[in-house]
């Protein structure tokens, strides 16, 4: 059976075509999901791509969390549906309280686009099982509000539970504990500031294909299931 990965488009979503292409590259099926529909189309996993949904007005992700599709997605995620949010997708997952903490303005106060060295901290998620724990990878980052913050208690819990998925090597934005990505306690919901979908081909994007691992991971998880 083919793994069906839903790709959500909100008004202002930018990386949805890129995510769909990456999903197809590893042999899975990309299923477009529209923000205004109450319909997850029976997908096996969901990718929330980056962009500026609703123009990032009010606060990044603050409006998207109320989209009709999110009313379907949140309960499904709580019941174990694998969900990966990157960049704006990560911000939406935090706003929707599927992940703890928040993403705030970069410490530099500038938007930053660069090829970023990262360390994969845990492979115990459906999105990172193809990596080796401790593996160093390079993915692009491109954001103005990627500084991860959370209360001291939350941070301690994230660290104690092994919920930090990816850490920056050379912190680009002032994120606490160099956090670039986290998972929920159950492990099925992952949020990342870096962009795996821009590092899947030699010809284009970042000078790395390390992003493929996120897509082969979910494929493996779904096909093995």
């Amino acid at each position, binding site marked *: 059976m083919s793994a069906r990965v839903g790709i959500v488009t909100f008004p*202002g979503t930018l990386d949805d*075509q890129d995510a769909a292409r990456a999903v197809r590259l590893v042999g899975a099926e990309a299923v477009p999901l529209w923000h205004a529909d109450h319909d997850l189309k029976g997908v096996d996993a969901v990718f929330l791509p980056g962009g500026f949904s609703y123009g990032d007005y009010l606060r990044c992700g603050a409006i998207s969390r109320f989209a009709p599709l999110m009313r379907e997605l949140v309960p499904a995620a709580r019941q174990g549906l694998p969900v990966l949010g990157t960049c704006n997708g990560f911000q939406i997952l935090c706003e929707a309280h599927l992940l703890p903490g928040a993403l705030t303005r970069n410490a530099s106060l500038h938007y*930053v*686009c660069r090829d970023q060295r990262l360390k994969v901290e845990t492979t115990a998620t459906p999105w990172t099982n193809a990596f080796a724990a401790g593996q160093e990878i390079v993915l692009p980052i491109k954001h103005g509000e990627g500084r991860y913050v959370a209360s001291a208690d939350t941070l301690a819990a994230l660290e104690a539970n092994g919920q930090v998925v990816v850490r920056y090597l050379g912190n680009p934005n002032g994120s606490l504990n160099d956090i670039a990505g986290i998972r929920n306690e159950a492990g099925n919901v992952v949020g990342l500031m870096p962009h795996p*979908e821009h590092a899947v081909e030699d010809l284009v994007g*970042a000078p790395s294909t390390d992003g493929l691992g996120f897509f082969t991971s979910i494929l493996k998880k779904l096909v093995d299931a």
Partner: protein
Amino acid sequence: MTDNVERAAGTPDEPMPFAELGMKQDEYDRVKEILGRRPTGSELAIYSVMWSEHCSYKSSKVHLKQFATKAPKSDALLVGMGENAGVVDIGDGWAATFKIESHNHPSYVEPHQGAATGVGGIVRDIMSMGARPIAVMDALRFGGADQNDTRRVLPGVVEGISSYGNCLGLPNIGGEVVFDPCYIGNPLVNALCVGLLRKDQIKLATAPGPGNKVVLFGASTGPDGIGGASVLASATFEDESQAKRPAVQVGDPFMEKLLIECCLELYAADVVVGIQDLGAAGVSCATTELAAKGTGGMSVDLNLVPLRDPSLRPEEILMSESQERMMAVVRPSDIPAFTAICEKWDVPATVIGEVTDTGRLVMTWDGEVIVDIPPGTAADDGPVYERPLREPAGQAALNADVPDRLDRPADLRATLLELLGSPNLASKEWVTSQYDRYVRSNTVLAQPADAGMLRVSEVMAGAEPTTRGIALATDGNGRYAKLDPYAGAQLALAEAYRNVAVTGARPLAVTNCLNFGSPEDPEVMWQFAEAVRGLADACRTLGVPVTGGNVSFYNQTGATAIHPTPVVGVLGVIDDVARRVPTGFTTEGLRVALLGETAAEFGGSEWAHVAHGHLGGLPPQADLEAERSLAAVLVSAAAEGLLEGSHDLSDGGLAVALAESCLARGVGASVSLTDDAFTGLFSESAARALVTVRPEAFDRFAKLCADHEVPCYGLGATGGASLVVEGVLEVTVAELRETHAGTLPALFG
């Protein structure tokens, strides 16, 4: 009370504020002659803005026509000058449309919004050709890097481009950042956008078919950019005094992103007969141009225009430059489908009128006719001036002040580092890291590569696959153009052409943004005329037609104009994008070769500028035949897979090209020079490039050069952790990087 046509006919002597709107007495008289009466306030608004320098090209037209009369024969040109943007055939059924446009003055007044809306405006030009915009670039000029106002203008401009372009989802793949004190009161913000479309899907700005509906869609209309119209509304019509309103438009990139997706869906559904974006001159421009190019008539009820500020007067609505608006001509039977697509994307759309065959553009307000004009008289028949020209008084002395008298440096290592760390040559990463270069995942090359490159095949879902890619570069050197505007414009073209060719792409077509001082100054007008003549001649020699562009005059403070600054963009096509040639040294063990001849050419050079603050003599010779041969070698060699890397030689000469090549991937090189090391390293002779070739492929490559009569000099090999010029200098790549990377962060934080 509103001035209407009936009232205007009855009050022929009522004074009208044409002078406040920038209109000359004789121009006003011509309007009266065309209409057979005085214009109403709304008509005056339309004529004043459509006949402005910005919209009518009245001072430049007589010169710009050389781009057509001297145009080389080109099978690639599908749509030439005069439309929103030119369109060229790139093969396999695909077409590319691209254009560069200035937003200089707004970016000085309000850097953030000025630059942001510059991006927004050029993107809508590309959309209105029926294309999906796929990338942007920015050619920027600022005052001296250490001048106070540069610290205000540069960060604002960069943030404006960053916030608008990133939110729009278009990769920024290249451009320029240049500093010179001549731009301190007149920064240049030239924005370029490129789009792709299928050859048979080109849309034009035309309103044919009486009965077809005129739809305004996108953002609502507010009081942006209508300084002039406020004068009209308050000075003439005893209206409640309007508060001073912002003269710089404010952008909403989120709305623009929705507009892009909405337009593409409208095109795919085939519910658009004609389309025009609303930029400068807003509704005035869109209605007159659409009507003039269509059946010839249009009726519009201005009360139907959705307003953000309900107090706006009709004159202000006509002149508002509110952003993110488009106007489409739609068959009545397609209106439901059109509206449904707009609703899906949350884009407001309103029918405000319809196409007629009366030959008149008629507008009403509160049921009264306030505009009744032949639209072509505003859109096409503006005044044309043959302005006086005079070679600048100091030109001969400037050219006589040759750089021969300047002291040559004893320590070439120190000179290299001094140049590499100077603001114009230092790394621009502080700027470009604020731009998203990856979005849409088609970026093959981006800054600091010589040209940006994008693959074509993945651009539209469902389109037939192609291996092709497109490359784009912009260049311009104000110092060269100051010394000799004819040669300076040719050198700008030559450099952009070369930058496209070094990536392996075949140069195909040209866009240009001509930034000059006041056309009313005969010396500036001489610079302009010379630059246009030079560019048109060079385009003919190189076989690349001008497809469109923009003129920006009045870039001057008091009597002091900027250096004449023609910025030229070249678009090229590469048949197999996988064969693209990266910039710089990629691996160790490659042969390094210099292509082209080097003479002692230092006039206007970066060395003269940095080491001596000197500007004099003549710029390097523009040898266009040599450029053409060089490009032919580069394109053939890339197609054969002979090149591992390449880099264009320009500002700072071979020394800077070598250093930048080392910095690309941290690979050093060891080279030797046979002649005078200073000339060899720092001369800025044109028509040269640095290439790296695998040793086993070198003979084949050398033969290719010989076949094209391109001089090829083996310099040495890549490898090691340093740049070594034997017997002359040695610098570690780490020191090069530190010098190169540190300058802009130290200046701008």
